[in-house]
């Protein structure tokens, strides 16, 4: 009994959420047979919830477009830099769109990453309409025959309706320009608590999120909210951030993730 309570607490401490943690333990206990290893069964259940479709789905015969969204400070711009480098290493040409036209030095920050990754950058002056930058970036990427365009956006709290409307507009304009996103990545900070679910729901509703990039897993936070995000919204984790360097990006591995949660 104490062992099950201990496992449930591990899940709660991993930000899985009390209701989900209780449910997972209850369901695993129901099918528990003498001789089974409780921890291994819980790990299996976590892996089952997380699903299988963790790869980035990018076309190879036309411009691939990745839209990157999320709340303030979650790691969007840094993740874009790392992803650009990874795609370049796979032999693709990459273009970046400076869609954060709001925050101080957002352009300058993305410029550094573009240079590090060998990616072309399309940006406008601070205060420009992000949709205009998006449009320009698609047009330019198609004209240059670039393989992948990654669109950065300003951090925004999902509770701010005008900002979520702005994001909807960016997505619409990308489509209009002929750059309908192949992936819409929600960047979630692994230290985020239960609010991560509300964030994911709001961004999914606004721009149809196709995957999560879970960042800062090199810390002590476990990122357990991605379980509820997968269950309730059907959105899988595709990438994880494990540091501030250009190479600190990994494909999501549900088994390793489950192991990390259970210590």
């Amino acid at each position, binding site marked *: 009994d104490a062992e099950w309570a201990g496992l449930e*607490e591990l899940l*709660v*401490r*991993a*930000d899985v*959420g*009390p*209701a989900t943690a209780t449910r997972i333990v209850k369901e695993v206990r129901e099918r528990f047979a003498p001789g089974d290893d409780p921890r291994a069964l819980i790990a299996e259940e976590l892996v089952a919830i997380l699903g299988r479709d963790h790869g980035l789905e990018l076309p190879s015969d036309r411009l691939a477009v990745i839209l990157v969204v999320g*709340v*303030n*400070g*979650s*790691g969007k711009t840094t993740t874009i830099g790392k992803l650009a480098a990874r795609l370049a290493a796979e032999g693709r040409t990459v273009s970046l769109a400076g869609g954060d036209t*709001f*925050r*101080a*030095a957002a352009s*300058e*920050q993305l*410029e*550094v*990453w573009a240079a590090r990754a060998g990616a072309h950058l399309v940006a406008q002056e601070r205060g420009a309409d992000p949709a205009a930058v998006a449009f320009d970036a698609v047009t330019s990427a198609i004209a240059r025959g670039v393989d992948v365009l990654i669109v950065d956006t300003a951090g925004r*709290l*999902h*509770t*701010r309706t005008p900002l979520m409307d702005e994001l909807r507009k960016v997505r619409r304009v990308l489509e209009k320009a002929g750059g309908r996103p192949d992936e819409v990545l929600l960047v979630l*900070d*692994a*230290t*985020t*608590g*239960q*609010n*991560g679910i*509300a*964030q994911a729901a709001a961004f999914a509703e606004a721009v149809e999120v196709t995957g999560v990039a879970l960042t*800062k897993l*090199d*810390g*002590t*936070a476990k990122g357990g*909210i991605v379980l509820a995000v997968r269950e309730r919204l059907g959105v899988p984790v595709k990438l994880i951030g494990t540091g*501030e360097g250009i190479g600190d990006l990994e494909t999501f591995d549900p088994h390793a993730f489950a192991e990390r949660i259970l210590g």
Partner: protein
Amino acid sequence: TLTGRLNAVFKKLRSRGKLHPKQVEAALADMRTALLEADVAVEVAEDLLERVRTRALSEEVMRSLTPAQQVVKVVRDELTATMGGTQAAFTLPSARPAVVMVAGVQGSGKTTACAKLARMVKEKGKHPLLVAADLQRPAAIEQLVTLGREIGVPVVSDGRDPVKVARSALKQAGREGLDVVIVDTAGRLHVDDEMMREARRVKEALRPHHVLMACDAMTGQDAVVQARAFMREVDTTGFVLTKIDGDARGGAALSITAVTGRPVFFVGTGEKLSDLEPFYPDRMASRILG
């Protein structure tokens, strides 16, 4: 609402007249779930509920006609008290210069908080100096320079490492008669020993009057781990709880104050440099309880 939930709990285990201890236990179990859903750290929630149990088992609550309301009141009081009770005044000594160091994990809102604080002290008639000691993040210095320009506060970043930048800034403040020095530092993980050592060295160079930890209001269980570690390494004097303008319940506010005994001085309520307000424990308690 919490009162509604507890009413349901008490109704389910209905007994005549006096409240039964079993009902209190059921209420506490429900409270625990509610606190965890609000991102209060497990250990902090359990400590708090221990105190609530003692008070809830008192005659006054047990004989009350409205026990659910009484228990909610006890919980609210304990939450508020744990977070310091009343608004903590952020005071700077008349030393010249008064020094504030801002630290925290990546993306928690430090750079923005430094500029907001500089604007606030400038409005109070002081002459602040902003110090860009994050030499790591791409365009971190540019970010602070841009913000400083927006509020008319000078920004310096003179040196090839953060300790040198800190020392040089103190000298400059002394030369120019600037009376408040606010130092932005690089985001760092509490498990990055080298970076935590660097933070200690920067602190030693600054001998700051305040070390504020910026903490994101949407942080979950990890808030306790972060707060403890920064407390141990740089002896934080208090917190700025950022991004409170979202809809996170903000249990982190309880976690960080409970495990450090230090107050939240300010909350960040938006991205504008005027979006910095005092922290009110009672308002936060209501928010956490939902």
